[in-house]
């Protein structure tokens, strides 16, 4: 059996449009579609589910061409943000809803998801985690070929979100059913995805593994969206021994050569977690860039400190609280910033 293939799908809905979307992925893979609000993520999911028929292109699930099939024939488990349980039906009746559901299977699903004691409850009396399990059991009752999740965690508090995300990831792994998640949260994408597609204005910007998308963004938009804090316009001035020299302002960055050829103008991407701060230069600086920097400002978010630096060009680094205290990183302080040549990614422009 083949995986899932979206081939050159275009759809114009006026307010939203999908432009020539092509995606393929294998069964058992978890795919995350990442993008800002209004990018057309939900429209893409609803097109896969059959609520819209594309103007052009084809959608294949397994060996079936489902492009013009109605939703009820597609065998796709669609999970909405609030799980969309039927409020007038009990837990058991919700799970029995699919016409393919047989009673034995429903019993097994209730047991599997630990829902036996809730069979006669109405959805309003369930916790967030219980709702998620009922919705999953209900979708599984019709033997889905594919799961679609539309921002399934965005309405939950941070703690519940972490728990449910963990449970869901384990479950999807056990089931071996492929899943597509839609989210605007890059951290969530990183946690769930085997592969990521970044969508903007109905167009795919980049498709790849989380490492590829986060460390080697294809363009400036993706770089900004996946949390690259430092984006520096520069010129390639030399290339030798696998190292490219990029002049940025009056400084030069040494970047591991990944085959950037012919281009002179580039954007150098530096992730904030790849910037190391110390009191003094280290001796084994073979492939490292080291700059004397001055702290411009410090802000804290969650467990990290975000340090904005002046290195002759603007530079952003994340540190732990311990390092922040050790290095006395208050504004005006001078420290040494090092960035490995392999940690810098070049986007040609």
């Amino acid at each position: 059996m083949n995986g899932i293939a979206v081939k050159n799908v275009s759809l114009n809905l006026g307010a939203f449009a999908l432009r020539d979307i092509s995606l393929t992925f294998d069964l058992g893979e978890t795919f995350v579609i990442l993008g800002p609000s209004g990018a057309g993520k939900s429209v893409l999911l609803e097109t896969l589910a059959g609520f819209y028929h594309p103007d052009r292109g084809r959608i294949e699930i397994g060996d079936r061409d489902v492009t013009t099939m109605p939703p009820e024939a597609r065998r796709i488990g669609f999970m909405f943000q609030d799980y969309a349980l039927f409020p007038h039906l009990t837990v058991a009746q919700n799970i029995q809803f699919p016409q393919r559901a047989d009673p034995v299977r429903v019993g097994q699903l209730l047991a599997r998801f630990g829902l036996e004691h809730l069979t006669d409850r109405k959805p309003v009396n369930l916790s967030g985690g219980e709702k998620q399990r009922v919705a999953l059991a209900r979708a599984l009752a019709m033997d889905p070929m594919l799961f679609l999740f539309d921002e399934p965690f965005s309405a939950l508090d941070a703690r519940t979100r972490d728990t449910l995300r963990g449970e869901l990831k384990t479950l999807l792994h056990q089931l071996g059913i492929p899943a597509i998640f839609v989210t605007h949260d890059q951290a969530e994408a990183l946690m769930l995805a085997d592969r990521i597609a970044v969508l903007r204005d109905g167009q795919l910007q980049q498709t790849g593994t989380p490492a590829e998308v986060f460390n080697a963004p294809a363009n400036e938009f993706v770089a900004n969206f996946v949390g690259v804090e430092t984006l520096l316009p520069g010129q390639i001035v030399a290339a030798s021994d696998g190292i490219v020299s990029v002049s940025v302002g009056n400084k030069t960055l040494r970047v591991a050569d990944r085959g950037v050829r012919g281009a002179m103008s580039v954007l150098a991407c530096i992730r904030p977690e790849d910037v190391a701060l110390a009191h003094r230069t280290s001796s084994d600086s073979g492939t490292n860039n080291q700059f004397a920097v001055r702290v411009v400002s410090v802000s804290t978010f969650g467990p990290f400190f975000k340090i904005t630096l002046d290195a002759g060009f603007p530079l952003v680094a994340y540190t732990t609280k311990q390092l922040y205290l050790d290095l006395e990183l208050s504004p005006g302080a001078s420290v040494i910033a090092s960035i490995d040549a392999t940690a810098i990614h070049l986007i040609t422009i």
Partner: protein
Amino acid sequence: MRTKTLTLSRGLLLTFWLIGGLLLAFILLPLLQLYATQTPASLVHIAAMEEVRDAIWLSLVAAFVTAIFAGLFGVPLAYLLARTTFPGKALVEVIVDLPLAVPHTVAGIALLFVFGRTGIVGASINALTGFQFWGTIGGVIVAMLFVSAPYTVNAARVGFESIDPRLEKVARTLGANPWSVFRRITLPLARRGILTGLTLTYARSISEFGAVIILTYYPMTAPVKIYDLFLQFGLGDSSAMAALYLLVALSLFILFRHLAYGRVIPGGRQ
């Protein structure tokens, strides 16, 4: 449920209660006075008259049938108005509400042109089936339906609008076709709105006088019979029948209201 009203002043609320209380008294006083003028004997006397009982029974049956027709024809329209946009939607909304703005005697005369002896529908149905709208319960129902159908359409529409469309979408992905989704998800969830509408239609129908009396004076509905007694015998008998009819009609109204509102789906969002 108790609501805390920290920001509202006690003086303001008391004043509003005094003003609002006047309106409540204005509604209740005439109705109570109607019963104050009656004795059990006068009610028994009027209830013993066969044509009085027939008129009340006719009103109740015709109103019930009217509600059924309003449901059959009004619920699909309510769904369209709630779930779709189409050119001319504003016009359709105006048409639905039109009977509320048409004086009921005017409605009766207009209906006469269509369902009367020489009316386009009245004459052709009479020619085809022998059924006539004049002098039968058919005319009563037609008059009631015209003035009361908007209540069903509008309340059912609110019922449909209160349903999250994602419930219908997820039902489709679970293998249900559009008809099955409507029957198993949409209709049960809109149940309360629809029943509210039917109750209002029923209540409006049992009180209808103007359109009915012009379209079909006979057979007499309860309001027509009360008017007839008033013209023939003055306040005595007509007030007794009025009290009796009010008792029956209100009891049924409270019963239907209870059926519509009372059984809230346990755990349902509505």
